């Protein structure tokens, strides 16, 4: 549902009734898209709106927030048992911004545990189901944030994207999702998994809504030392672009069939060429090594002492920490922490971690060369249609599903997933990649593509 459609409903029925109806839909939903529903707070805010006391650019608009983004006094679990009792004592920067603009936080969206996954199957709270086929996944790791937009269980949502975690569920749920340039949105209050790769970003049902949410959350914040200190303003722009198809980013016949159809439409309006990125052969391995290494360091903080899941009896520190972490973490999280510890351990640092950071340089070089020639690059967001639940049982097979999305995070570039209709009744997404801080170009191009495609 678009903000404009929601506001029509609010005008005719009042915000309280509109929110109550949405909460009712959430309660009856089979998607499992929420970990926590903020029922009382949401209704209270809706009443406030009806009394004319809620002001701002998002006044009265229900927003879902991924459960790895801190919300004061509201359970924030990262979909992990180890944080299953954790209530932050502060708001994330982006949550402060939502509140300042009058948004109604309707709930905390389900996700892969600590954002480690591509299907939301690693959540301690169970898998999120695809709104278009309940036997299939909604994508991940921001699976809940994607599903709620498609199913009208929120109007806007926030996700986080470490290696495709906004774009994958956007593609699988047929909605818009943007991974902003690294540093555009403050990560203060985002529970960290892989700091050098991840960004918080918006998800929505149309480009205008996506742009508005980005305008609200982007900007300077001194509490994130990697913040770029710049904001965002959406400006309509219809100039002719040079569009490059990335040869190394492919997919199976189902998604590539649709991709090629979309390319034909784009060719009627823009100049389209092809570009080759030789370093992408190494991008997936480099991405996983960096993400796992950063995870092993970041997740060292979970020891059952200051917050989170604890054992009743305090033991010697070695045994206590090892037992808390054995019980508190799920399998995929353990796998990534351990592989990260391995990659950083003596004797392997040069072979894995340092090598991966060298690949990052090569990936950035390839992108830089491509953007000398093209304004935007395009590919299929995902190499396949939404997977069946349980289809990607082997970890390495799961990792390989991220092949088209991870190079963007290695380089810190922005990328958008635009819904381009359905194949076999399942949504397909087009990935649009831009140069640093070119979000405005991406959103304008995305708006054109979605208009042409729905014509």
């Amino acid at each position, binding site marked *: 549902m678009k903000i404009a459609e929601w506001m029509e409903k609010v005008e005719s029925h009042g915000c309280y009734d509109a929110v109550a109806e949405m909460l009712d839909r959430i309660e009856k939903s089979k998607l499992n898209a929420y970990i926590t529903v903020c029922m009382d707070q949401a209704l209270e805010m809706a009443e406030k709106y009806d009394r004319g006391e809620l002001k701002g650019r998002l006044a009265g608009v229900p927003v879902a927030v991924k459960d790895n983004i801190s919300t004061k006094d509201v359970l924030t679990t990262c979909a992990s048992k180890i944080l299953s009792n954790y209530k932050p004592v502060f708001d994330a920067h982006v949550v402060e911004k939502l509140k300042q603009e009058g948004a109604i936080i309707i709930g905390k969206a389900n996700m892969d545990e600590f954002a480690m996954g591509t299907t939301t199957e690693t959540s301690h709270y169970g898998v999120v189901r695809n709104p278009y086929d309940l036997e299939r996944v909604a994508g991940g790791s921001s699976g809940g944030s994607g599903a709620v937009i498609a199913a009208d269980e929120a109007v806007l949502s926030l996700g986080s994207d470490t290696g495709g975690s906004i774009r994958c569920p956007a593609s699988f749920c047929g909605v818009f999702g943007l991974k902003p340039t*690294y540093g555009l949105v403050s990560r203060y209050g985002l529970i960290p998994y892989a700091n050098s790769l991840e960004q918080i970003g918006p998800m929505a049902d149309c480009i205008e809504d996506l742009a508005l949410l980005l305008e609200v959350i982007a900007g300077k914040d001194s509490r994130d030392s990697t913040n770029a200190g710049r904001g965002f303003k959406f400006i309509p722009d219809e100039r002719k672009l040079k569009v490059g198809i990335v040869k190394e980013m492919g997919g199976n016949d189902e998604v590539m069939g649709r991709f090629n159809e979309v390319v034909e439409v784009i060719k009627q309006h823009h100049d389209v060429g092809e570009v080759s990125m030789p370093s992408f052969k190494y991008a997936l*391995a480099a991405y996983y090594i960096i993400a796992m290494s950063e995870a092993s360091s970041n997740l060292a903080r979970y020891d059952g002492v200051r917050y989170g899941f604890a054992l009743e009896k305090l033991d010697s520190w070695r045994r206590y920490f090892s037992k808390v972490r054995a019980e508190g973490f799920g399998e995929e999280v353990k796998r990534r922490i351990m592989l990260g510890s391995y990659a950083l351990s003596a004797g392997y640092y040069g072979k894995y971690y340092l090598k991966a950071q*060298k690949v*990052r*340089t090569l990936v*950035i070089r390839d992108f830089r060369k491509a953007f000398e020639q093209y304004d935007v690059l395009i590919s299929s967001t995902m190499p396949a249609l939404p997977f069946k639940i349980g289809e990607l049982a082997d970890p390495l097979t799961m990792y390989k599903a991220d092949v088209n999305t991870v190079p963007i995070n290695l380089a810190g570039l922005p990328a958008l997933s635009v819904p381009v209709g359905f194949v076999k009744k399942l949504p397909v997404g087009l990935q649009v990649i831009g140069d640093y801080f070119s979000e405005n170009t991406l959103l304008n191009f995305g708006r054109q593509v979605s208009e042409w495609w729905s014509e």
Partner: protein
Amino acid sequence: MVSVEEVYHTAELAKIEISEDEAEKFRKEFESILNYFNILDEVEEDVEPTFQVLPLRNVFREDEPGECLSQDEALKNATHKEEGCFKGPRVVE
């Protein structure tokens, strides 16, 4: 090749207790994943690594006292606490 001993050693480094069954399962998975990572052996050595994509160096703030959490807030999420302090496990064995 990854040995079960290496898996146990890594689990100890990561402070995660694992069972025998888990160790064997992880061993197999690590082998296939690390085998895939070995593709990086093809990459030339003579490249500067990039640890961070933004051209930022040493971001400091003014060293001025600001608001901080109260003792109650800081302890709010702890299970084990005593006399206004966190209570941790024994560190001397």
